[in-house]
């Protein structure tokens, strides 16, 4: 990293020799437009919108009217450039503002932008500098409006944005589920003073109160009492102090508790009360701690009084007093718990520092109507919570050689994402089965597992672009980036919200994309699809000869055997790498004999003896044998029974999962061989719909809106979820309002053991909602 620290943070000058690491900060500036800036007391937040050119692997069917020869692939893979939109947010210290503006000026090429939206107390101070450097007109926006707009945006679009802070719990951060309905809520912004805002709708908010005792009081009074100048240092002092030396406690007055009122002896009766009655020296640490308690308790008390008066239960805290400081999050949480007796929880936000910049940006982007898109946090380009430790002082930072900046990047998805309409309770739905933030053992294992698999992924990425010599270098960069992410997550599992197997997988996909490896498995998928297609008719015929009961079992077993072919599972990819002949039959032999680890097959077969389902929604998993020899024969039987089938597949590539565009071509080919599939397609009894995701896992609260419509229109009454990623790591406990099958082969011995089985154990979970739940 080519930079040196050592800038003087006190003044707004900086070391001119600083060179910014352009690969890492202010990325994609060439096409940047719509700038916004939020300048606070010590930090500047810059926002801009850019377009990112990505390579994406496209598949296109060959023209099969020409005579086919064996060994010809059935579709063509071509790498194309695709342009997607991305939001960039960068946070850095005010001392670097001039360096940063110069950098932006030098790198901004194709912009038509004329204005920059600005907010925050410092916007005024730096107005001339910005206008001179960037030749953009500074357009000031109201601070509070920006704050609220930004808050609405992150609450709606970023999963696990809000969290509860619990200092002494196993995991300090408990992330909240994204609520579809975020209003009404209360935002308490603790800057120099305190503002209390009630937000009732997107554009409806009101400042219902405030207090002059805020961060400025802690800082100002703290500086007077302790002769310590910096806010961070004051907090550090406070974290080492004992407030009981300075405060008068209930027990100092009563000798114990004030029992009849339920006031415990340790309660503070009078802040700084001891310094009024005892003539002694008090330590800086103790005074800072006492001050911190005094201010936090006071703010907490007012917050509770306002929450009660306005009947609000969701209370978010922000402002520089809170900003990532565990000390203040703890004291505020304590205060809220005390004053509401646990009825209201203090909530904090992962991207709290960005709210003003996000809001100012959105003010400038209103004509783009950002609400018509969905947004996704890009884990590759975002720093994560506490990336810049507030406890690190500038000298330590300079020594560590890091330029202290923090980034957030959001990718725009050109579709709206919605809940699966068949979720029993969308508000309590949690996609992930295990929260690795809380489960330390599981976290340890999975982090190790992903690190172990990294070599293989790098190799695969290089192999997928043999024709491009610089792919090796890019793959190495990918390795470094992802390894760094894994290391960060080892120490800060809370960095991107709850750590889950899904988030680890998604982070890997984001990092691969970042270095232009859009689809490392494209050629493998192609090869495996080709091979599996050759066996399709054979499999279908052999099944047709069986009795009804035998056939159902063979189909179920085939589905499970197909699911063994998963490059995402290390145990399997090792086998597939070493033994290319490993086939469908071998896979069947690997499967666990019944009774399976989770075995509801008997109930399923009983159900099949009844009337056919109206419509089955099938979330498919791997390409090749899985989809062609496992899934298709299975759904073929459903179609014959008179059940409509919707195959939901990924919109974009992830591992060897079949994508929607691949599935289109495969289905076409199968239809050409198989009159049952052909008829079903023609009569629209078989539909192929993309799920809106590019993840090996499945979040049923973020599905393509089109899919949700199809599901509703067809009266779907059966949901089948297949594979480890979609049915075990996620959705294992998902409660649906219709019948469901969750099927997977556990291709990981650690996980199998945890569930009480061995590798290649089978999960065959069939669930029927109770009548009472169905009516919901």
């Amino acid at each position, binding site marked *: 990293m080519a930079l040196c620290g050592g800038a003087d943070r006190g003044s707004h000058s900086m070391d001119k020799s600083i060179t910014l690491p352009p690969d890492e900060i202010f990325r994609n500036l060439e096409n940047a437009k719509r700038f916004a800036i939020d300048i606070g007391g010590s930090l500047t937040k810059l926002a801009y919108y850019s377009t990112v050119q990505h390579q994406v692997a496209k598949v296109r069917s060959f023209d099969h009217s020409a005579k086919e020869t064996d060994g010809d692939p059935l579709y063509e893979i071509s790498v194309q450039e695709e342009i997607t939109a991305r939001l960039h947010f960068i946070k850095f210290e005010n001392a670097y503002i001039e360096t940063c503006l110069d950098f932006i000026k030098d790198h901004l090429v194709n912009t038509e932008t004329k204005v920059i939206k600005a907010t925050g107390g410092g916007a005024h101070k730096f107005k001339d500098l910005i206008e001179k450097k960037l030749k953009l007109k500074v357009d000031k926006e109201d601070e509070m409006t920006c704050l609220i707009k930004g808050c609405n945006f992150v609450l709606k679009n970023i999963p696990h944005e809000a969290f509860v802070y619990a200092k002494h719990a196993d995991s300090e951060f408990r992330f909240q589920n994204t609520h579809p309905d975020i209003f009404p809520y209360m935002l308490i912004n603790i800057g*120099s003073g305190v503002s209390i805002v009630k937000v009732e709708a997107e554009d409806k908010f009101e400042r219902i109160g405030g207090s002059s005792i805020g961060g*400025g009081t802690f800082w100002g009074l703290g500086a007077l009492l302790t002769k310590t100048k910096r806010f961070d240092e004051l907090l550090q002092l406070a974290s080492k102090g004992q407030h009981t030396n300075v405060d008068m406690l209930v027990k*100092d*007055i009563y000798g*114990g508790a004030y029992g009849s009122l339920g006031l415990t002896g340790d309660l503070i*009766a009078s802040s700084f009360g001891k310094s009024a*009655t005892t003539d002694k020296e008090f330590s800086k640490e103790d005074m800072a701690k006492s001050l911190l308690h005094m201010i936090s308790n006071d703010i907490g008390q007012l917050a509770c*009084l306002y929450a009660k008066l306005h009947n609000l239960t969701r209370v978010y805290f922000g402002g520089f007093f809170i900003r990532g400081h565990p000390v203040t999050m703890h004291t505020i949480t304590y205060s809220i718990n005390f004053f509401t007796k646990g009825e209201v929880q203090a909530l904090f936000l992962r991207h709290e520092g960005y709210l003003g910049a996000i809001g100012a940006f959105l003010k400038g982007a209103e004509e783009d109507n950002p609400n018509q898109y969905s947004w996704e946090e890009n884990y590759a380009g975002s720093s994560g919570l506490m990336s810049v430790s507030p406890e690190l002082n500038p000298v330590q930072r300079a020594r560590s050689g890091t330029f202290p900046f923090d980034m957030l990047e959001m990718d725009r998805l050109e579709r709206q994402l919605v809940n699966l309409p068949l979720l029993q309770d969308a508000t309590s739905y949690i996609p992930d089965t295990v929260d690795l933030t809380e489960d330390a053992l599981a976290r340890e294992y999975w982090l190790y597992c992903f690190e172990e698999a990294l070599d293989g992924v790098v190799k695969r990425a290089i192999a997928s672009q043999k024709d491009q010599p610089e792919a090796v270098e890019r793959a190495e960069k990918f390795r470094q980036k992802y390894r760094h992410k894994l290391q960060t997550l080892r120490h800060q599992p809370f960095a991107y919200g709850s750590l889950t197997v899904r988030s680890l997988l998604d982070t890997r996909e984001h990092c691969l994309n970042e270095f232009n490896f859009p689809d490392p498995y494209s050629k493998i998928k192609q090869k495996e699809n080709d091979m599996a297609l050759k066996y399709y008719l054979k499999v279908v015929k052999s099944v047709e000869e069986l009795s009804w009961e035998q056939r159902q079992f063979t189909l179920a077993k085939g589905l499970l055997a197909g699911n063994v072919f998963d490059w995402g599972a290390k145990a399997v990819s090792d086998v597939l790498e070493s033994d290319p002949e490993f086939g469908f039959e071998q896979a069947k032999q690997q499967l666990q004999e019944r009774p399976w680890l989770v075995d509801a097959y008997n109930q399923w077969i009983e159900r099949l003896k009844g009337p056919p389902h109206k419509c089955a929604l099938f979330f498919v998993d791997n390409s090749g044998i899985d989809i062609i020899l496992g899934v298709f024969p299975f759904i073929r039987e459903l179609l014959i029974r008179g059940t409509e089938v919707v195959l939901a597949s990924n919109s974009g590539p992830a591992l060897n999962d079949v994508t929607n565009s691949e599935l289109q071509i495969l289905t076409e080919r199968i239809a050409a061989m198989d009159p049952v599939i052909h008829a079903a397609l023609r009569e629209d009894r078989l539909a192929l719909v993309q799920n809106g995701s590019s993840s090996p896992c499945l979040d049923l609260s973020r599905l393509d809106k089109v899919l949700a419509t199809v599901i509703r229109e067809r009266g779907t009454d059966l949901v089948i979820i297949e594979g480890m990623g979609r049915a075990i790591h996620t959705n294992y406990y998902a409660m649906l309002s219709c019948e469901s099958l969750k099927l997977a082969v556990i291709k990981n011995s650690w996980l199998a053991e945890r569930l009480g089985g061995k590798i290649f154990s089978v999960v065959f979970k069939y669930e029927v909602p109770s009548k009472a739940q169905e009516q919901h």
Partner: protein
Amino acid sequence: MDIGGTLVKLVYFEPKDITAEEEQEEVESLKSIRRYLTSHTAYGKTGIRDVHLELSDLILWGRKGNLHFIRFPTHELPAFLLMGRDKHFSSLHTTLCATGGGAFKYEDDFRTMANLQLLKLDELDCLIKGVMYIYSVVSSGPPECYYFEHPTDPERCEQKAYNLEDPYPLLLVNIGSGVSILAVYSKDNYKRVTGTSLGGGTFLGLCCLLTGCSTFEEALAMATEGESTCVDKLVRDIYGGDYERFGLPGWAVASSFGNMICKEKRDSVSKEDLARATLVTITNNIGSITRMCALNENIERVVFVGNFLRVNTLSMKLLSYALDYWSKGQLKALFLRHEGYFGAVGALLELPNPS
């Protein structure tokens, strides 16, 4: 007695209708104590009798006499107990009614040091009883209950008597070392709504640390001389004037001590300014919490008591102003002359009938 965190409040009833016979029978120790209390206005270095609060010709338990109001710092309690031992308090065959936290904390000391048995009473029960009693017996002289008329206009602001005949419901805010806020619905129906640790003790404690003063009177004198607007950051310091969008006037404090984050400003303020800012911060905060409680409890009348308000017109006017301004005239701040003594009076009234 009311033994608080900072001050001990002592109320003494001196019968004036003592007959010659009674006087004959009286033990010497009682006479000596009465003489000591009534002939002095100061006791030792720190004990004070608030002569201006004395109530004469009261009828209590069928006796006519004067009620005296005495206070001394809680840390002088051991000296008080030694004096009680020397003056043979324990020979009086009387019960000492005590309330406040100290009644519990020092109960053993009373017994071992002065051979005195305490009748311990709840401080909030006593507080309310004391308020109602004093209001009912004061009929002549300066009014017990008063308010400030035109609190938002310094030119016309003046003290006026207030008729508290029909007092309920009432928000009673007791500002001692800390603050308790009570909602009182009738003579014996009340609840403690909340409290805050930012009270008189905080004002004095911070002033001692910031200015090196050591007494409440000193701190208050400095505050009277000082100017808080150079210490605090006002709305107009940030917005250049009013923050109209949210109806915040430019003179409102945006951040208490907010200007003190800057070294140049820290170096230019006086001790008096710091004392004033401390007083304004604590007072406004009490006003703000009180207003929220009044809204939540739906009570419009607020009575402030407690020794923080003693000779502290600055805070009383500030509270009157704040309540009136932020409630748009809905809330009224009331004050009582015997501000800090109600707990002690309430305790006295619990004395088992001495006749």
